[in-house]
């Protein structure tokens, strides 16, 4: 399993290198420049940014505010956008700063910034200290957490490529877990209509994930 993960991560790196070299080629031509379209931001990137933020700040209200602030900051500094990065990459970069600022702010009080370290909860515990502190090399917990976050972003990316109505139905059903009846009432469609849309969305998603994930 570890070996498999290793191979997979290497493959991903390779992909990144490949895609980087492609954009590098494009950068030499001025016509390949990216442009900002703030009117589409919320539809295209809100969920993606939100997932990114919530991976770092588990409070969904704060995450929502940060996404909002990111859009505002993006709008404000739109004239500084040089166009060598894709719109989403640029927004993620802003969001990253916002997350760091958030943690700086909540830790600004001197008392909160002070970190107290104890060897362990039971300070009278005896035994081989170092051995107990070493990370378990067989633990797949950290790795799979990172991988799951990447997977979430990949799925979100694929969802944003779906037609708008299908994406809406799919997120309502799968992510927000709203019942079929409620969705039908809200969107004014009948159940068989809904299932057809779900079917198309799932088929498209599987194709997309096959290309981008496996």
């Amino acid at each position, binding site marked *: 399993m570890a070996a498999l993960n290793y191979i997979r991560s290497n493959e991903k790196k390779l992909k990144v290198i490949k895609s980087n070299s492609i954009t590098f080629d494009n950068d030499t031509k001025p016509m390949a420049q990216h442009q900002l379209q703030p009117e589409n931001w*919320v539809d295209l990137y809100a*969920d993606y940014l*939100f997932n990114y933020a919530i991976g770092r700040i588990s409070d969904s209200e704060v995450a929502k505010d940060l996404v909002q602030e990111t859009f*505002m900051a993006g709008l404000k500094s739109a004239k500084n956008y040089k166009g060598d990065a894709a719109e989403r990459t640029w927004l993620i970069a802003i969001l990253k700063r916002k997350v760091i600022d958030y943690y700086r702010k909540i830790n600004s009080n001197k008392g909160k910034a002070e970190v107290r370290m104890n060897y362990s909860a039971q300070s009278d515990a005896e035994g081989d200290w170092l051995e107990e502190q070493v990370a378990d090399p067989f633990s797949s917990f950290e790795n799979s957490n990172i991988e799951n976050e990447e997977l979430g972003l990949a799925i979100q990316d694929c969802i944003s490529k779906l037609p708008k109505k299908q994406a809406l139905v799919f997120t309502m059903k799968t992510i927000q877990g709203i019942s079929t009846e409620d969705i039908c009432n809200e969107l004014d469609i009948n159940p*068989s209509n809904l*299932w057809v849309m779900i079917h198309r969305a*799932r088929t498209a998603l599987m194709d997309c*994930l096959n290309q981008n994930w496996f």
Partner: protein
Amino acid sequence: MISCEKAAIICNKAQYREATFIEKLKLRFHLLMCKTCSKATKKNTQLTSLCDKANLHSLTENDKLKMKEILQEKD
């Protein structure tokens, strides 16, 4: 005997645990004979488990509308 289209719809319903017992029985029966559908069902189940694993979050439409309004005011 049900058609492949019907089997696909039932399979999707089953992913959200909304297929009835009779429907599931029909689906099982269909899958025994149809190679393509059993492959598709496997893929579909895989997608469900991926979505569960990824622990996805999303903003509601209301939140998005509010964001749009605030952004437009700024413009």
